[in-house]
């Protein structure tokens, strides 16, 4: 890592705040930002990890302000980030450990001491281990700074079944870009002149710095912005062109773009020659994928595809086909993302300003904890056998659930869950409930009584992020940063950080040696290698250590070895071929929408990205109930008007909610927001209000990555 870059921004002693302030990224002249007074920490309400400064009054958290020192968050704290205060002071949050007193889901709880909760859980886990081996336990979690402790407990216990969130989110995009470039790059929207986004509703599902760079970069500079989506989203409303593409045909659009670019010789020949493998095969492969053919698949006119392809190639290297984040759409999702990666490679935008840039990282130290033995049993999701290219560390959620339900290849009878609500984040709620039913034990660690917690046997209340200190996290990117989440206020209830919850269990499971440290020791070890003098002191004072200047072009060097099998950027992938997959992305049309049904598509809103946020008052105020979007044409046929109660039914479930008749969706699709129709009465604003998308979603996954395919469900809609 280039220390000079860092020193340019860090200076010594007090950080030269003006020099790293975020408005400097944008064109508009603005005064140097004032760094608000308070305690710097890091937001936990979504994976962006924005830097926050918490203002306290009389010991209470009064307000959260953005910390302009973090270039990634661009001086922004979104509505969700602000609402974090309401999680802390939520009268219905989890306040002490609970053990189930009635039947699962009946809602009868016995408040217990931490000792009793730990003893009970350790006994249950040991019983399962005794009967089924450590592999009989499942440890699932979503990303978070303390997730490492939870996963480590599962691994130290001897379970191979550590299950992380990517296969419900971005596994296919990560795998596709890794298989092509050997890494997952960022997209330099601040400097791009031509941006294509397909379904990545970046104005509403906020990703930092991309959302802000769309506003401060793409829009401010009047760069060309093309958007493809079956829905007219806020992003569509801000784009130069919106194409309501036929769902599931993005791959046809991309292949036709590559066809045009290669046919008209608009590719970056020198780049392809120097850095890529498989150009000849690609050129042959895309020959049949003409714009005229793609028009029939996508519904986008051939002349528009040609025009967009030309303009895209001519704007390169400052042109990007944006990857998106939640890529759990179709069963061919990996191949579609691979085609995006190849399209970007063809115009040579790799590692160029305004193009696609490999991430930099801020170095940090590591706390050395004891290693445990590798698990003896294979994973229950059989990821190595069925998804050999997927991340074996993260696992594949839906195939895992199916195997657990079948008891194959062995029984799994205990499920520990951290910071995740699988009843909402995993498609087909009915089957997830069945999985819970067949468990001998379910334990949940969370801050609120989620629906999954509601069906658990033991609930451990975690301290809120504003009440605890977490490990230092590195945020890789074009503007990388290392951030600290530190305690702002003392816990107001009898809650504990995940590490202490894990330590209580470890002690009782005979695993104490693996967790014999404090969070302070952990953070201190990490801070020791931050590229700044007095790293610990600095990061405690500022909340962040960051680089201000991007570094372009380091990998455009003939001696650079890309982290792929061949060492080149792989347009053609031998490894895919060996694994029995298409080495170049081959188009297969999506399943046709059956007569009288609609394809269900999902999406997010700036206030609602995660299921756990809908009950927070400030966010709830913006959206009190979800409804189902329906185009006026089918609505008229079905006699449905806005506000009517309708029943939406898939093959696995049915729900009732209100209809919203709108031109803003294609006639063959319906849409509903996530995070409503809660079963837990503790989430009272959304308990039984609206409907849960997870009830309707059917089980389907991408063939290569195992990522859930959440746009493969067809539903019927009828007026009640």
């Amino acid at each position, binding site marked *: 890592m280039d220390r000079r870059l860092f020193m340019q921004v860090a200076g010594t002693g007090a950080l030269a705040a003006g020099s790293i302030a975020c408005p400097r990224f944008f064109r508009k002249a603005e005064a140097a930002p004032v760094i608000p007074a308070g305690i710097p920490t890091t937001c936990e309400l979504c994976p962006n990890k924005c830097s926050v400064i918490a203002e306290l009054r009389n010991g209470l958290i009064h307000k959260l302000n953005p910390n302009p020192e973090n270039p990634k968050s661009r001086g922004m704290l979104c509505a969700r980030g602000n609402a974090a205060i309401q999680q802390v002071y939520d009268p219905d949050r989890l306040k002490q450990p609970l053990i189930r007193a009635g039947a699962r889901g009946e809602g009868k709880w016995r408040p217990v001491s931490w000792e009793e909760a730990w003893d009970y859980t350790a006994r249950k886990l040991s019983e399962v281990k005794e009967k089924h081996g450590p592999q009989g336990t499942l440890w699932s979690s979503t990303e978070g700074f303390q997730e490492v402790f939870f996963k480590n407990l599962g691994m130290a216990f001897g379970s191979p079944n550590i299950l992380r969130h990517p296969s419900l989110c971005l596994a296919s995009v990560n795998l596709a870009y890794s298989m092509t470039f050997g890494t997952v790059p960022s997209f330099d929207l601040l400097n791009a002149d031509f941006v294509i986004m397909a379904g990545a509703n970046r104005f509403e599902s906020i990703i930092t710095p991309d959302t802000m760079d769309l506003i401060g970069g793409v829009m401010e500079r009047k760069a060309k912005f093309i958007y493809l989506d079956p829905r007219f989203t806020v992003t569509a409303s801000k784009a130069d062109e919106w194409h309501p593409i036929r769902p599931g045909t993005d791959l046809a659009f991309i292949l036709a773009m590559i066809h045009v670019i290669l046919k008209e010789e608009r590719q970056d020949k020198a780049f392809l020659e120097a850095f890529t493998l498989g150009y000849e095969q690609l050129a042959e492969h895309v020959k049949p994928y003409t714009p005229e053919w793609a028009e029939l698949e996508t519904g986008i006119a051939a002349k528009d595809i040609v025009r967009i392809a030309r303009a895209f190639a001519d704007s390169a290297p400052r042109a990007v086909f944006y990857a998106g*984040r939640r890529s759990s759409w179709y069963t061919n999702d990996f191949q579609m993302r691979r085609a995006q990666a190849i399209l970007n490679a063809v115009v040579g935008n790799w590692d160029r300003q305004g193009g696609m840039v490999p991430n930099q990282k801020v170095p940090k130290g590591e706390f050395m*904890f004891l*290693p445990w033995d590798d698990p003896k049993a294979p994973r229950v999701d059989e990821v190595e056998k069925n998804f050999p290219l997927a991340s074996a560390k993260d696992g594949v959620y839906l195939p895992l659930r199916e195997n657990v339900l079948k008891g194959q290849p062995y029984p799994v009878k205990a499920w520990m869950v951290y910071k995740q609500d699988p009843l909402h984040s995993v498609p087909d709620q009915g089957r997830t409930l069945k999985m819970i039913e067949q468990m001998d034990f379910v334990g949940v660690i969370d801050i609120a009584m989620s629906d999954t917690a509601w069906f658990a046997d033991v609930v451990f209340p975690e301290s809120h992020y504003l009440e605890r200190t977490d490990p230092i996290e590195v945020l890789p990117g074009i503007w990388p940063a290392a951030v600290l989440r530190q305690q702002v206020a003392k816990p107001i209830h009898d809650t504990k950080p995940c590490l202490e919850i894990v330590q209580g269990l470890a002690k009782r499971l005979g695993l104490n*040696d693996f967790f*014999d*440290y404090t969070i302070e*020791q952990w953070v201190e070890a990490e801070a020791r290698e931050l590229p700044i003098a007095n790293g610990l002191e600095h990061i405690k004072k500022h909340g962040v250590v960051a680089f201000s200047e991007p570094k372009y072009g380091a990998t455009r060097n003939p001696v650079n070895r890309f982290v792929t099998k061949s*060492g080149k950027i792989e347009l053609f992938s031998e490894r895919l071929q060996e694994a029995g997959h298409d080495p170049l992305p081959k188009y297969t049309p999506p399943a046709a929408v059956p007569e009288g049904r609609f394809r269900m598509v999902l999406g997010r809103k700036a206030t609602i990205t995660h299921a756990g946020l809908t009950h927070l008052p400030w966010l709830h105020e913006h959206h009190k109930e979800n409804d189902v979007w329906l185009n006026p044409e089918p609505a008229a046929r079905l006699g449905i008007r806005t506000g009517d109660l309708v029943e939406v039914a898939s093959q696995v479930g049915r729900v009732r909610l209100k209809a919203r008749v709108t031109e803003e969706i294609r006639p063959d699709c319906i849409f509903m927001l996530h995070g409503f129709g809660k079963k837990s009465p503790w989430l009272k604003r959304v308990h039984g209000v609206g409907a849960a998308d997870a009830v309707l979603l059917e089980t389907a996954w991408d063939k290569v990555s195992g990522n859930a395919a959440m746009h493969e469900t067809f539903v019927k809609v009828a007026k009640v």
Partner: protein
Amino acid sequence: MDPFPAFRRRFRKEAQMKLTKLAVIALLGLALPLSAEEKGSDTKGKFYFKKSCKTCHVKGGSALELTPLSKTQAQWRKVFDAGRHGKAGEGFSPKFGTPEQIRDIKTFLINHASDSPQPETCGG
């Protein structure tokens, strides 16, 4: 304050356990070429790599910075099988770890090499 209490304790234990074996190896002056077929522990290999190798093989350290991505699988195999370690190719003497630990390191590096199916890269 000692930041690594458990770590040190465990190493003391392990060191004692391995003492006899190490003494024998040291006495015979054996380097430790390891066959490519040996299968060690990935998890432990990561730990020993950081603990042992990273004391020198870091940016600004006394030896070239190394991560699993620094070499291909074949290159890592060569390093270990031919005992190509150190300026004079003297191999892995016991000060770098027990034979089991070296095997674990080798397993970790090969499993996550630059051309491996699961390279150590940043994810999401």
